[in-house]
């Protein structure tokens, strides 16, 4: 089913010079493989067309069930050079979560149970 990325993931973003980083974290391990397929650098570049002037790089972190994106030339020059309201890309993490992604219904429902606190998002530590 087509859902917003916020149904199956959460995120945090930050800056390094003129590059923004956007880390996208799957709400459940099962959701991760769908993020890998759906949230491609090309789609991220398109999603951030308003700010991203450079390339988008993607790194996979299967250990964290997370993807890390580097959005180059996206902060108006970065640092104090930038005239942008969000010169440090602090809001990009929330911003990416409005992207539409195709994820099986059962995976979405499992993620909903994590969001509402019914299920843990990661396997619990063994005793």
């Amino acid at each position: 089913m087509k859902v917003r990325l916020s149904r199956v993931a959460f995120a945090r973003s930050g800056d390094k010079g003129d590059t923004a980083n956007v880390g996208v974290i799957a709400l459940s391990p099962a959701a991760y493989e769908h993020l890998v397929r759906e949230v491609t650098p090309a789609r991220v570049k398109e999603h951030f067309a308003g700010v991203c002037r450079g390339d988008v790089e993607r790194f996979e972190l299967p250990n964290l069930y997370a993807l890390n994106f580097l959005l180059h030339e996206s902060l108006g020059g970065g640092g104090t050079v930038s005239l942008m309201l969000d010169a440090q890309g602090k809001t990009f993490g929330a911003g990416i979560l409005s992207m539409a992604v195709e994820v099986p219904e059962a995976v979405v429902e499992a993620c909903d149970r994590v969001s509402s606190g019914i299920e843990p998002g990661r396997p619990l530590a063994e005793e």
Partner: protein
Amino acid sequence: MSDPRTVRVASGQGFWGDWQEAPKLQVRSGDIDYLMLDYLAEITMSILQKQRVKDPAAGYARDFVPLILDLAPDLVSGGVRVVTNAGGVNPAACRDALVRGLAGVETSRPLRIAIVTGDDLMARLDELLGAGHSLRNMETGAPLEEIRDRVYSANAYIGMAPILEALKQEADVVVTGRSTDTALTYGPLAHEFGWAEDDWDRLAAGVVAGHINECGAQAAGGNTLFDWESVDLAIPGYPIIEAAADGSFVVTKHPSLGGRVTWATVTEQLVYEMGDPADYITPDCVADFGTVAVRDEGGDRVRISGVRGGPRTDLLKVSIAYHAGFKATGGLTYAGPDAVAKARRADSILRARLDRAGLRFDEIRTEYVGAGACLGLEPGPGAGELPEVGLRIGVRAAERAPVEAFTREIAPLILAGPPTVTGFAGGRPRVQDVMAYWPALIDRSAVETELRVEVTDA
């Protein structure tokens, strides 16, 4: 025989301007061994350098001194040691202010203060260039000569060696300049557990711990997007790293304080400001964040294990800030109906006046706050219904004069512009210096021979 101890390194400050109560709560709400305080961001060094140019006794994070004066009796009685980069571009002045202040504070024994110097390359720039260190911009490849006369600050990111030396000399408070943020956490761990300087896996584990600690509350529920509404951040506990000799550690917080430590809060911080996760370069090792295993044990305890690392490189990163012109940002608020249309009209009027005055800028940027500005979006179809919108205009130029002239053109829009305008109470926008960032690399030997540790009892 293996070392059964755990060492607790608490985070108390994630940037200069962070919550001043946090470090006090970290010391007074439970047992910790070390308090790490990170004050420096890329831009902070140039601000501190600017202060030092005006006043030779300035150039460090001033908040740090009253904090230590307040905490001194607790540090002595609790055996808590402080490691911080609050020294900025002037660790000696920071030490002097501490010594003066501590003279008026009653403690059962003197506090031993160590400062670390030698990371500041500003006075050595020409010597270094002359010796063949080109300090090219590591992103563009351009030689430093292009901006040499506009350089404001130049500091090498240094590693744990001087921190280890200071702790070996039994310092209670270690004040560095541009120590790498993570070293403020892994330095104490390497000292306590005697990690070898080529024990890459353990050092990498310490780097991951440092990455979690260096942004204050961000690892403990601050800024956490996952389930954010249910986190109590009124009086948050900042993160505490509880490390074992093998490098594994638990991220936790004092139980009596707010905040939250879960797999989600820690994972969010792990990906924050991340580049290539397999290649997280520090002065002391290269950590692979692709090896980090996260286990939520419940009760605000998250266990990190399995971290692998590789050898350190022969180079240190140098953070150079240079003057790159002037800028100003101003704004007004337009109320609906047709808030966006009114703000757009004000923008075109302003631009016409700037044109007529013959002012030239490197960039003019207009944003409509409330209509998608954070993501650089043009106001969409729904924006016509907004009850109000913030018009935000910024300009940047090499010369001060056109920027100064721009700051005088906002207020006239109040009467000689579109209707239903408000939000102009702040007066004229301020002209700001633009400090640009020039990242470079240097042979570590060119810096490390100059590093010094000085110890004073106060």
